[in-house]
């Protein structure tokens, strides 16, 4: 029997689910491997309530999110945190650096106290996560790697080295050499350095590597004229939940 796959979405733009649907050349092959039983962005039907694989997109930001993701966890064998909001909190965690009530007033105006919210959490701050697909948005190649690895019983390969590796492989001119700043030296690779390759800087969307040289990065950014506040803003764009943002 084909593994049953479900998609769930919490606080996010749902663009990572779209990345899955964007796997146009591979989608039919993938549907030969798995049975999708719950995928609100792609189909109306809900065909099962227990899952071999659940892709959980989005950050956890309300009490009901907490209950819901705990419930999904109970009904899921392999839970995959899907995309930056789910794996590291992502840009939703920017609100954690402001008083929660101020944020609620700003967003919901006069009905602010009727709408529940909690400080942003990544999925693994609430439930156990078996597997991570990082990025904003996720990389199609990594989706394929994870799905085929799970099917074949392999451990998917998630890089734990800086974006610089892939940026140099792409033979890019270093972002710092262009007079910009970049979080590549401390950010997890796996994106093929797509942002520097197309003229942008690395914003840190895949999270901080497990052994970053944070002091060196902060020194480097300070050397380029960034104040402490500016440096924290760089980190807090995507990595607000990480130690580096404290």
């Amino acid at each position, binding site marked *: 029997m084909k593994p049953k796959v479900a998609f769930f979405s919490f606080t996010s733009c749902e663009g990572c689910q779209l990345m899955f649907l964007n*796997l146009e*050349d*591979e*989608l039919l*092959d*993938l549907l*030969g*491997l798995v049975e999708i039983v719950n995928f609100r962005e792609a189909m109306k039907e809900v065909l099962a309530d227990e899952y071999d694989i659940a892709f959980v997109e989005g950050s956890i930001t309300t009490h009901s999110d907490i209950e819901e993701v705990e419930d999904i966890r109970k009904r899921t064998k392999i839970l995959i945190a899907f995309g930056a909001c789910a794996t590291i909190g992502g840009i939703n965690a920017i609100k954690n650096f402001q008083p929660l009530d101020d944020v609620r007033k700003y967003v919901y105006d006069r009905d602010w106290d009727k709408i529940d919210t909690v400080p942003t959490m990544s999925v693994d701050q609430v439930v156990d996560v078996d597997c991570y697909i990082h990025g904003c948005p996720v990389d199609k*190649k990594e989706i*394929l*790697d994870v*799905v*085929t*690895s799970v*099917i*074949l019983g392999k451990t998917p*390969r998630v*890089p*734990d*080295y*800086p974006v*610089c*590796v892939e940026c*140099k*492989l792409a*033979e*890019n*001119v*270093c972002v*710092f*050499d*262009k007079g910009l700043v970049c979080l*590549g*030296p*401390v950010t997890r690779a796996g994106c093929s350095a797509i942002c520097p390759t197309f003229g942008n800087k690395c914003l840190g969307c895949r999270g901080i590597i497990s*052994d*970053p*040289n944070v*002091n*060196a*990065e902060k*020194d*480097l950014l300070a050397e380029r004229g960034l104040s402490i506040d500016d440096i924290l803003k760089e980190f807090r764009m995507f990595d607000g939940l990480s130690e580096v943002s404290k």
Partner: protein
Amino acid sequence: MLPKIIERDDLRAFVEALLADNVVVAPIRKGEKYVFSEVETFDEIALDYNISLLSPKKFFYPQIETVLKFKIGDRPESQAITEASPVIIFGIHPCDIAATWLLDEVFKEDPADPNYLEKRKKAVLIGLNCAQPCDEFSFCRDMGSYNVEEGFDLMLTDLGEKYFVEIGSKLGEEILVEGAHFRDATSGDLKDRQAYQEKKETNFVKRIPYDTKFLPEILEESYDSLVWDAIAKRCFSCGSCNIVCPTCYCFNVTDEVAASAAEGERKRVWDSCQLAEFTEVAGGEVFREERSSRLRHRFFRKGKWLLERYGKLGCVGCGRCDRNCLVKINSVEVYTQLAGEPVQ
């Protein structure tokens, strides 16, 4: 083979003749930097480039290369992939030629690496001599790679109105015939070449305060030096030094399975000994957990181990590692500091 001369104005015609029926790669501009890339016209070539981001080794040993295709399931199959097509590398500098010599030694050692060797065999190297160092990062004089006597098919030296052409191989000679813009060098040309060399010798200065033949001993004595810990404090372990190095040859191997989960490709990708994952083995044990031990490993490879194994330094002094180091770890400084350490 006796050297030849091509007039400056004829170089275009020679290169255009090469372009007519060959794939030619040459240094071109990329932003403020240079890269080796396929060119279609002579004018794209940056003859005055200092150094390319990656060395031309990428044409023999691509950053990512499929080495095997496989099928999985009831009847597994696999097929080794070796792809190589002819290429002319125009404008390669002496340091990168020296680096190619080392890579040749490494990849032809048993078990020989067909993926590298097939590509290498089909490549023509047309060197371009350097009159002065690229910049303050160059230490090619120390590493002895600022002049090369061999390893090229042709070597061009810019003598102003003319290029002095050394022929390094039979293949190089054949290309000359194809171009037919060359004349034999006269004694006057040889004198001009000699004058160029004398000037070059003064332009390139040594920067390490001792002869690099002593590097193995100095490194040996420095295994427990505090220098490694000191520079490790600012090192990102970002691997840039390895990836841009013309002599680094370590790779990782990964399997990419297609969406059908029935077939896939095995790829090799340049790896870096500065990454903790590099020494990770089954069970999760990492042999060089400390940044300092990884840094030390790189310097020992370049200055000691490869010399002991292949008879040539593992570093050509091109300075790419240092130029690309965001935290200014500098080889010349490291080698200098090591020598200043009290022997333990």
